[in-house]
């Protein structure tokens, strides 16, 4: 039994601070939906509004079509997995998992049986009588998931539950979470600041910044067709050039920057005269020994990183603009050296003009 979650013009204010600003989104039953954004963007506040720990200042939260106004967390069909998991350290593992059933008056034998069943589901069959403190990080994670699943929630809310794990385990748990979600068909709402996590696991992603929902789309669209400069810069790497839109020709426009005039396509809602930036993904920036016919800048290589499956090259042009280009390593690629003269060449189709702030992590570029 999974239910959809609908946020209808939801606003949350703490004093004069607007943590969530007029967010509307319709999350489908059985969907794996992620809210992605930097810390302080309001994503955790959204989660706490859905779970019922706080009530929105304005707007409605509906779960399974029902307005949740005034319903406490213990009256909602949601289960929250806390960032620090919040397992009960004084109870053995199985009592942790069965706590929700204990609350519902299920008798002890049935509780125990259900806890063991869930432990098998999360691949921890022998942990029932262990203490929480005896478990590793990944095992605690699974117990937290089992505890939340035990109450058969219609909606599972996850607040960056993987952030405390090391990289290997995190990648493993991603796949595991995804598999559990597919198996149980429960709606998952996942909060993260890790774009890789959001893109890899989600059916749809909502990117947030400063309390506002910037874009809601399937992962490919978030990456390939970002709605604005923030989404483009928060998700993935970019070459970002400032300039002015000067002319239009066959779907593309010309964009004059200090480093030259390039052809590029207009992003959503961008028109001539707008203050836009050019965004170009590193994998679309080709490092060439010869100048291209158009969209070509002479550069000098400043740094080369051989990553195995791809080669990442940093370079700088005569105006001081820096570039990152990435090429797949097909075995025959020639690795340039520091100080080599090359050309950055790209197609106008791959360069997109977007407006809006850019995320802090890309500001230096």
């Amino acid at each position, binding site marked *: 039994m999974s239910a959809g979650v609908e946020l209808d013009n939801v606003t949350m204010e703490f004093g004069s601070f607007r943590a969530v600003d007029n967010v509307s989104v319709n999350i489908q039953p059985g969907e794996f939906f992620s809210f992605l954004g930097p810390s302080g963007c309001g994503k955790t506040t959204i989660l706490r509004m859905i779970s019922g720990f706080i009530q929105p200042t304005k707007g409605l939260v509906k779960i399974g079509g029902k307005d949740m106004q005034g319903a406490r967390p213990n009256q909602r069909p949601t289960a929250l997995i806390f960032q620090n998991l919040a397992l*009960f350290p004084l109870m053995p593992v199985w009592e942790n998992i069965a706590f929700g059933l204990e609350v519902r008056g299920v008798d002890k034998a049935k509780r125990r049986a259900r806890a063991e069943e869930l432990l098998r589901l999360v691949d921890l069959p022998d942990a029932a009588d262990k203490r929480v403190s005896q478990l590793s990080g990944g095992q605690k994670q699974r117990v937290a998931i089992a505890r939340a699943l035990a109450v058969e929630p219609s909606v599972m809310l996850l607040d960056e539950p993987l952030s405390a794990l090391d990289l290997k385990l995190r990648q493993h748990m991603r796949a595991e979470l995804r598999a559990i979600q597919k198996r149980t068909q429960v709606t998952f709402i996942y909060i993260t600041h890790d774009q890789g996590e959001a893109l890899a696991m989600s059916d749809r992603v909502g990117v947030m910044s400063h309390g506002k929902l910037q874009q809601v789309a399937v992962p490919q669209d978030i990456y390939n067709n970002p709605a604005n400069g923030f989404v483009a810069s928060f998700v993935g790497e970019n070459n970002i050039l400032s300039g002015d839109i000067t002319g239009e020709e066959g779907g593309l426009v010309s964009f004059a920057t200090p480093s030259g005039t390039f052809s590029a396509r207009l992003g959503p809602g961008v028109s001539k005269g707008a203050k836009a930036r050019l965004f170009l993904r590193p994998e679309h920036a080709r490092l060439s020994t010869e100048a291209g016919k158009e969209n070509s800048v002479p550069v000098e290589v400043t740094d080369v990183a051989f990553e195995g499956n791809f080669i990442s090259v940093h370079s700088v042009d005569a105006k001081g603009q820096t570039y990152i280009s990435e090429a797949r390593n097909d075995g025959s690629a020639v690795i340039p050296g520091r100080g080599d003269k090359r050309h950055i060449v790209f197609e106008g189709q791959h360069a997109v003009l977007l407006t809006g702030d850019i995320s802090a992590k890309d500001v230096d570029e």
Partner: protein
Amino acid sequence: MSDLLNRYGGLLTAIFILLTAFWLLMLVILPNIYLFENSFRPYLPVNEMGGPKDVYSLNNYLTFFKSPIHMNVFVWTIIYSSLVTLICFIIAYPLAYYMSKIAPDRIIPTLFLLLFVPLWVSEVLRSFAWFIILALKGPLNSTLLGLGIIEAPVRWIMGFRGVVIGLVYTYVLFMLFPIYNAIQSLDTNQIEAAEDLGSPWWRTHLRVILPHSKPGIASGAVMVFMLSAGSILVPTLLASTTSRWFTEIIQQWMFESQDWNTGSAYAFLLLILCTVFVSVVMRVFRVKLSDIAK
């Protein structure tokens, strides 16, 4: 130690240590040893002290077990001290929970101040104040009469009623602060997790908050119980003439009978029997001594 030396130099450090040692040895350890030694000796006229009759025996201790009246007083002292402890817990737990998890941070200093202000007044004055408040024609009765809650004045200082009120008032903070510390160390997410899993408030307390605060409750309870059982001031002032606290019997032995030997034996009996009682209760509630020390 080397820290102390570096900060204050040799002379001051020596003075600190000597003063502390003096206090501990001369004012705490030696008097107790003296009383302990005396508790095994008979009460004799001065000229027979050190004579052939002055031998060690358990007679002083046996006096207690041969006296049903004294044993009766002891039992009631234990019962009423337990009652005081229970009432302190009932008052302190909700307050401690409120202060550590619900009250907004900015009012915490004010709350602490309000709790501490009564401690600035000496215990004697506070007990006298209760004596006045609880008097038959005192402010409590006139207020209750005025509000129409009671029809005739209540004799508050009857039996151990006044003592219980006075002891609760005097020692409730010793229960509050350990519990406050314990609950404060509980991750608020655990309370929220319980609620999120559907738990009503009372079950969250029963299964999550209370078990976590058990060490705090235990140390608060031990302190309140021991202090209550050992209190002399409050029972002297607030008990009715017919009800006696065990400490009053010790006082009678020492100051009215001038028999310090039996008085000492009674004092150590109080300590030993209370310790036994506390250990039994701790075992019943499955609290370990190491939990309390945390």
